[in-house]
């Protein structure tokens, strides 16, 4: 079973999260710059004379598609590396993934998200069919 993690994190935590994921062997990921706000509703910035409220802040959304069995470890890694304890640390969403197809090799499913040196190879897990 494949899952997708959408992690919405602080812009300034991108490198920490990327490094931590790399350390556990999450090789394939992509990210967007997004804008939004959560419960605290933005921050104040300085204008020409005094402050003003900005409610749409830049956040980073990291997308990872991975096997079910690696999900919990990856979630823990993101939670630890993205954490500051201040409002604005972000949210994680987890979805089931219907199918993955790699364009070059036409591999499907789990095979399509396996990489040399990834989390499975490190753990010596066997490649399983689907």
């Amino acid at each position, binding site marked *: 079973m494949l899952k997708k993690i959408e992690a919405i994190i602080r812009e300034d935590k991108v490198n920490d999260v990327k490094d931590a994921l790399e350390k556990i062997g999450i090789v394939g990921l992509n990210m967007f710059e997004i804008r939004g706000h959560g419960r605290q509703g933005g921050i*104040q*910035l*300085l*204008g*020409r*004379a*005094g*402050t*003003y*409220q*900005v*409610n749409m802040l830049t956040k980073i959304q990291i997308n990872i598609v991975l096997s079910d069995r690696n999900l919990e470890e990856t979630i823990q890694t993101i939670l630890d590396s993205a954490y500051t304890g201040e409002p604005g640390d972000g949210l994680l969403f987890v979805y089931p993934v219907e199918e993955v197809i790699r364009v070059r090799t036409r591999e499907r499913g789990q095979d399509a998200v396996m990489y040399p040196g990834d989390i499975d190879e490190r753990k010596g897990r066997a490649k399983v069919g689907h």
Partner: protein
Amino acid sequence: MGGDIVVNPINAGDTAWILVCCSLVLLMTPALALFYGGMVRRKNVLSTLTLSYIFMALIGVQWVVYGYSLAFGSDIKGLIGGLNFVGFTGVDALPNGNYSKTIPHGLFAAFQMMFAVITPALITGAFVERVKFKSFLLFSLLWATLVYDPLCHWVWGQGGWLKEMGVLDFAGGTVVHIAAGFSALAFALVIGPRKGYGKSPMEPNNIPLTVLGAGLLWVGWFGFNAGSALAANGIAVNALLTTNTSAATAGLVWMLLSWLDGRPSTLGIATGMVVGLAAVTPASGYVTPLAAMVIGGVAAPLSYYTMRFRDRRKLDESLDVWACHGISSSWGMVATGLFATMAVNSNGTNGLFFGNPGQIGVQLFAVMVTIIYCFGVTYVLAKLLSWSIGLRVTVMEEEVGLDISSHGERSYS
């Protein structure tokens, strides 16, 4: 004995210096375009740049055809210049006894042209991000003809009625900054706020552009103020020193005010510098550098809290032309009446602190006349255009942004 001894009164040093100053003042219009262009939203950058740049073309023609003549032609009852310089007829390479005793008349006219170019460009900060380009062009031409040219004649033209009263305005406190600031206020009241103003934040798209613009304005202002001595002499040097001192002081004070409200904002510091420059403009050739420190130091809080007041009133005078130029230069005009001293400039007069309290009244009168005239005529012009061809783009065009909807281009792809 031979004929008359002909002494060419043109002074090469003065001429070279004013040629440089003319170029420096020209640079201020692109600088202003950057200053403004950085503060609008990204969909209106090209539009905002164009609103300033177009004056180099529009007034560059208007001034030669008739603008200069209305401002500096033979006086008609103290109110307006005659048509004797239309098409720059008689504006030649020789000195002019009234305006340019040691430099060619054509150079004086060119130097003055750069003032006529930047003044209406200053007003554009009031109506960025929503003005209809066609109406803006028509307004600008009418404003230059009906407001700038007469006012310039009143204050600087030979026989102009305010000049005859003894008003001290070295480089354009009334003619440039109060005129632009209060016209901006009037126009903003007529055109109304941008869609969503006060509800969604309207963030500057590129503060580095604004900071660069402020820096170039400061450089250009040396030409504006020191050049207004019309000679390479001690008065020019004094004007340069007072200009620098006022900008420096206002920048520091603004930084502190911003700090008290949270952090020392970059945009705030750059704004404070420009406010100090606008404030000292009328005084620059008449006061000492220490007086300039007071002028800049007082201008900063005056302008800062005017901005806060305007914002609280939900008045969308978008880039604060009124606060930055109108208010600070009104103070500068009054301060000229306080601090002017003939020790700095023997062609001027003394102010209150040098035993001539009457000068304050003259200065205040000139400020009031300028405010009433500029605000009034601009308000009427804007209303007339609003009723006839309309001042604003459509709501849809405003949402799309003027770069695309008015000019068919975009700044960033």
